[in-house]
């Protein structure tokens, strides 16, 4: 009998470590022959903490939203065959949502123990590199990747075989293989989950890539905010060295390859390839002009290939199952699967991996369960600060690189932040510009000053001080910032503004011309009033008003003095009769 507790960062945040400790205490107290193990994130973050119990026939029962005080009961159920209460185990509906997915990059996350190489070996781990090293030449490896149609999952969607081939063609040595685990998009955590849940899978991908391009050194550039991912990678690298999958003369084939980890220090722009290289060299992470491309002159001016975590996670699968099997999934130009981090106003937030080509509606409603509190869907943000907001009328857009780009957003690395009717789109654009303004490295004037000016205008609009001509000025600035920026940070920074202007222009206009925020989010534009009919003259609003802006009595209906009102909304939250209106 095995008990497995999901302990990715998300599970731990939900209390999984405490659950694990409680289970351990229970097991030692009762002196039971049960092994307690850990695994990564299985994707159903909304059900965390998740505990899987495998019986003697290896049949799995999944328990959800487990609390430490359920430990004793879980053991009873597992040992004595007591039937669990329905709410304790995963529902049929949730199982169905899982079944609609196709796990390639996430194939092991949430099922194996990421801190034990034997678990990875038991699921045919390191078989792909064995096959590659013993039966294939680097050009054959690149050819197989070409057949698979794999494109970069880091955002740009560049064909992976092309990048590998470009690095392979270089005569100079040494060459370097770099894994981009900077995952800068705020609101996305695919790479974190893969690293935490299946570190050996990425190491194997790095080995195959390294062999293909002719590198003997690989580097993981990992975000500083991901300490657990770094820890598990360190453990995995150490174990892989012990077993001879890293180091000199790997598997007796004469191939040398080793890996080390560089922790980032917190800068979004360092996800950009040339900035990442500058950061690896210990400098400020400032992008530089391309060409020369990293494949020609990268880390220490040597040929360097940079791939995203998820891109690499697909690689071992491709060599075990064949490039054609990968290409059989997805659409004409976007092959395989894609992992998304489904968050925001969504019922079932978490990680999903789907074959390319499913529609946004299927992802958000069928797998994600729809909108929180059954509110109305307004938009989904894809691609983070470089992406855009896709509105409801485009929900049937298939999820593939070309179709998403056509909407004005980008596929990006996999962030999907869902917004409902209460999210103000102007405020959303302001949020992203605030982010890009802070994260601009400052090298290009258009990016450095342009984003600042755009932020000022957007702040002015959300503060209710928007002016006639602001929209046009924003549009002009968008063009200029796009044109005048060296790297894609500035080049794509206007996207959140452009897409919201394209699909939600009426919201901008309402802010500027009618001094109204249709989503009731921008506080400066709200007016609170008390409905004469609904008010029962209880006075609770007046007692809670921090500025004494509300007057009335047992006999007189309460009214708000608009000059004193600071629009904090306290009266609306405390009124038991829903008598406070906001517009």
């Amino acid at each position, binding site marked *: 009998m095995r008990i497995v507790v999901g302990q990715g960062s998300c599970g731990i945040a939900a209390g999984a470590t405490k659950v694990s400790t409680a289970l351990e205490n229970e097991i030692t107290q009762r002196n039971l022959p049960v092994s307690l193990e850990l695994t990564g994130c299985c994707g159903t973050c909304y059900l965390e903490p998740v505990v899987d119990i495998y019986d003697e026939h290896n049949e799995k029962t999944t328990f959800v939203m487990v609390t430490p005080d359920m430990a004793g009961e879980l053991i009873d159920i597992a040992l004595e065959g007591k039937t669990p209460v329905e709410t304790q185990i995963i529902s049929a509906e949730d199982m169905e949502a899982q079944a609609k997915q196709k796990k390639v990059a996430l194939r092991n996350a949430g099922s194996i123990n990421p801190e034990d190489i034997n678990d990875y070996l038991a699921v045919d781990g390191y078989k792909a590199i064995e096959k590659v090293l013993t039966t294939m030449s680097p050009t054959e490896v690149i050819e197989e990747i070409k057949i698979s149609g794999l494109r970069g999952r880091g955002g740009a969607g560049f064909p992976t075989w092309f990048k590998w081939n470009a690095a392979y063609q270089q005569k100079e040595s040494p060459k370097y293989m770099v894994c981009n685990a900077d995952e800068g998009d705020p609101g996305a955590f695919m790479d974190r989950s893969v690293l935490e849940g299946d570190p050996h899978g990425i190491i194997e991908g790095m080995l195959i890539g390294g062999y293909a391009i002719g590198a003997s050194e690989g580097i993981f550039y990992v975000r500083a905010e991901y300490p657990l991912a770094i820890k598990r990678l360190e453990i995995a690298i150490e174990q892989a060295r012990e077993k001879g999958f890293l180091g000199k003369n790997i598997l007796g084939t004469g191939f040398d390859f080793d890996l080390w980890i560089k922790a980032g220090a*917190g800068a979004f722009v360092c996800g950009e390839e040339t900035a990442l290289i500058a950061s690896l060299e210990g400098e400020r992470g400032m992008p530089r002009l391309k060409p020369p491309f990293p494949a020609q002159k990268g880390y220490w001016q040597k040929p360097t290939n940079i791939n995203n975590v998820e891109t690499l996670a697909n690689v071992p699968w491709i060599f075990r199952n064949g490039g054609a099997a990968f290409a059989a999934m997805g659409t004409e130009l976007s092959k395989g699967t894609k992992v998304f*981090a489904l*968050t925001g106003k969504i019922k079932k937030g978490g990680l999903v991996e789907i074959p390319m080509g499913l529609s946004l509606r299927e992802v958000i409603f069928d797998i994600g369960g729809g909108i929180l509190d059954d509110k109305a869907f307004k938009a989904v943000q894809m691609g983070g600060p470089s992406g855009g907001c896709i509105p409801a009328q485009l929900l049937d857009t298939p999820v593939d690189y070309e179709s998403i780009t056509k909407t004005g957003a980008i596929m990006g690395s996999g962030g999907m932040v869902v917004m409902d009717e209460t999210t103000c789109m102007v405020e959303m654009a302001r949020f992203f510009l605030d982010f890009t303004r802070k994260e601009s490295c400052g090298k290009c004037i258009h990016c450095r000053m342009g984003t600042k000016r755009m932020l000022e205008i957007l702040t002015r609009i959300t503060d209710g001080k928007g002016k006639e001509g602001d929209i046009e000025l924003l549009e002009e600035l968008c063009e200029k910032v796009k044109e005048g920026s060296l790297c894609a940070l500035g080049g794509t920074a206007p996207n959140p503004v452009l897409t919201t202007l394209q699909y939600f222009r009426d919201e901008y206009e309402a802010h500027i011309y009618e001094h109204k925020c249709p989503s009731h989010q921008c506080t400066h534009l709200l007016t609170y009033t008390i409905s004469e009919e609904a008010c029962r003259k209880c006075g609770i609003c007046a007692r809670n008003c921090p500025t004494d802006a509300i007057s009335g009595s047992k006999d007189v209906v309460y009214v708000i003095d608009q000059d004193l009102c600071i629009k904090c909304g306290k009266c609306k939250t405390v009124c038991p009769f829903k008598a406070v209106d906001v517009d």
Partner: protein
Amino acid sequence: MQCCKGQGPQAPDPTVSGVDLSLLIPVLEKYKSKPGSLITILQKAQDLYGYLPIDVLDYVASETGIKPPNVYGVATFYTQFRLKPIGKYLIMLCMGTACHVNGASAIEDAICDELKIVDGETTEDNLFTLNNVACLGCCSLSPVMMINGETHAKLTPDKARKILREIRKQDQLETGKEATS
């Protein structure tokens, strides 16, 4: 650019901190001859001292041969590096997209009100420092904050206040114990 955070230049504290520089010797021994290690050295230094005092930056510059402006340049470029000391508990409040959509600014208001500090500041009793960050990778449990490595998820303003009060109470108990024992 992160260097000024919109609140004027975040210049290194000019008063020499007087920290024990010798603690850094093993780190420098290991990394100073490896090109490209400046960020790693600064990370290790920050682990040792909790922040990067100006004498540490100068020391790193003189030992590695990297020019002082370049060391300051790197130290001010990356958000992870702090040039001022922090409180005993470092609150990293997520301001990422998912947390933002799910009400991170209300959490920020509650924390600022509870502790009477704003982003980047430390409470007078040196107990708490508030740092807004972009995404802790727990987006599906948003809004989220991390205090000294422990993640607190699905926050509400009240829950956030309660967590802070709890920590303060716990801390008083512990320091009280130390004082009496």
